[in-house]
């Protein structure tokens, strides 16, 4: 087991190194002459030469790559043009809010997707099954930015049920100020027992989280349905049936169990996918996380910030993948042999 974990860890490190090299290629090599991009189209020759020297572009590519990797490893991820702050410290402030949003979204996705998958399998071929399948196709085919706009228009602006944008009601800054420990308002409010902020944040979180949930909910419903249908034919299910257990016990306990392993895996992997989807959602709901930061950086052509966002999401993905692999190998020894 330790050998397996060490092997996976080594592969993970290798992938992260590759990820850094790839971002280097994207930022420095594909644009042709990055100095032009950095200095802007109206820069003079002298300015260009200066920029080139500042960025170390006068050195050979391998030397540049080595400098770049050294910077990444020592925490120097460059300075954002827009915020004038080190990219890494920017990321540290925006990432928690997005992790909170994506976690809430995946929680909703599980809450919606698992029961729907079970219902579809129970009524296989019937009307509920068809409804659930239509729902899951819509979920995975939905352009998230469009869904975000529609939910905002309908539930916030027209019906007024939920707040349209923001993290929590700004009036609460004064009436019940929130002490931040982890930069996630829900968690911070829970730690400090700040009920008004907690209520306000949760109501602000529902709409963006629903948008984030659309794709994973569709995916999970479909997966659970397929997996449960596979399992139903097996003898242990027939045995529980003949022992007189009800549908709820059979579907909820024995048929769902084999589906849980892939469900955990997909949920973890879809986490990074959803982090990228926040680019399309957060700006609409003005949620102050990685997505809003990325969308603003894209508009202001802030290359170091974009490279930083790209790197951090890829690293989160590799780490999650590693954890899933190791946890699954710990549960199911057969995986270690593959």
């Amino acid at each position, binding site marked *: 087991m330790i050998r397996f974990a060490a092997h996976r860890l080594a592969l993970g490190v290798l992938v*992260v190194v590759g*990820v850094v090299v790839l971002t280097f290629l*994207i930022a420095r090599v594909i644009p042709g002459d990055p100095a032009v991009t950095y200095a802007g189209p109206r820069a003079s020759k002298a300015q260009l030469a200066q920029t080139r020297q500042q960025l170390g572009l006068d050195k050979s590519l391998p030397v540049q790559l080595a400098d770049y990797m050294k910077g990444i490893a020592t925490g120097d991820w460059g300075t954002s043009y827009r915020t004038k702050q080190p990219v890494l410290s920017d990321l540290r402030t925006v990432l928690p809010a997005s992790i909170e949003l994506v976690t809430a979204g995946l929680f909703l996705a599980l809450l919606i997707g698992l029961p729907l998958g079970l219902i579809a399998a129970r009524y296989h071929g019937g009307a509920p099954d068809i409804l659930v399948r239509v729902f899951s196709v819509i979920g995975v085919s939905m*352009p998230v930015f469009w869904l975000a*706009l529609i939910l905002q*228009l309908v539930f916030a602006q027209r019906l007024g049920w939920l707040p349209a944008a923001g993290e929590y009601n700004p009036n609460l800054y004064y009436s019940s100020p929130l002490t931040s420990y982890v930069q996630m308002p829900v968690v911070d409010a829970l730690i400090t027992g700040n009920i008004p902020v907690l209520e306000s944040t949760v109501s602000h979180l529902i709409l963006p989280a629903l948008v984030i949930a659309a794709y994973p909910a569709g995916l999970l419903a479909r997966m659970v349905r397929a997996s449960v249908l596979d399992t139903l034919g097996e003898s242990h299910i027939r045995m529980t049936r003949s022992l007189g257990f009800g549908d709820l016990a059979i579907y909820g306990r024995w048929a769902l169990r084999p589906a849980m392993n892939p469900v955990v895996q997909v949920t973890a992997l879809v986490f990074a996918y959803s982090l*990228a989807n926040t680019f399309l959602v957060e700006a609409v709901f003005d949620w102050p996380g990685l997505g809003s930061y990325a969308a603003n950086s894209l508009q202001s052509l802030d290359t170091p910030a974009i490279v930083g966002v790209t790197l951090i999401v890829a690293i989160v993905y*590799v780490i999650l993948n590693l954890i899933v692999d190791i946890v699954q190998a710990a549960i199911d020894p057969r995986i270690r042999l593959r």
Partner: protein
Amino acid sequence: MSVAATIRPGRMAALRRNPTLVAGGIVLGLIVIVAVFAPWLAPYPADAGNATHPFQVLAPPSSAHPFGTDLVGRDLLSRVMFGARISLRLVIEVLVIAGLIGIPLGLVAGYFGGRIDQVIMRITDVFLAFPALLLSLAIAFVLTPSVQNMTIAIAVTWWPWYTRLVRGEAASVTTRPYIESCRVLGVAPWRVLLRHVLPNSMTPVLVQMSLDAGGILLTAASISFLGLGAQDPTPEWGLMVSQGAQYFSTQWWFVTFAGVSILLTAMAFNMIGDGVRELLDPKRVISR
């Protein structure tokens, strides 16, 4: 009895058992017809370009403009129709480019194995460490924004999936006796690869490609929505949603019809993908 007549009942039965494929096929068929005949079907073909009509800006849906008009007065129905051309072409181009890069690399990795296999697969690992949207956004970011560059950015992101699938399949095909006998007979390796390994490794890739079309469409619309894909006169659906976003609470039609088009097309692709998977039923399809 003719050959066609003996085959047909079986085919019809297979289709009847596969309503998702039929429904997706019909919807996609309609979209393809609209795309192909857009210059003749669209009421104002010039509005798909940079025509402006200052006196009919943001007009609500009417008999003259069933989908309303946009902020420079262009007919949205015409723009949505021409948008189908852009989206369909982009999806096909991405699949072809990604296939042309991914499939040969997978074949080589799976057939030869050893060090070359290791190198190719580690490279795919690096690409697969990014969510597709993120990597294609980063690449589109450093290129000049256009539909063509967006196509390239997405294709560069997409090929490793096919390399992985083909590699697995080719590796298992390579161990079969008929390949071994080819080798013993002294058939040239490229010939074995092209004539025997390739055709026997394609099924899962074809299934995955049909499942991917919807995802590619959504990725492209997202990139355009964020401003890094199609640029203004181009009637791209994602761009249209982004142009209309700030007018949504008052001019609902601007965003709605372009968004519905993306949703419907992606649904058609996904239903066809599911149908094709059921039809060919390989168990190793990647979920993304």
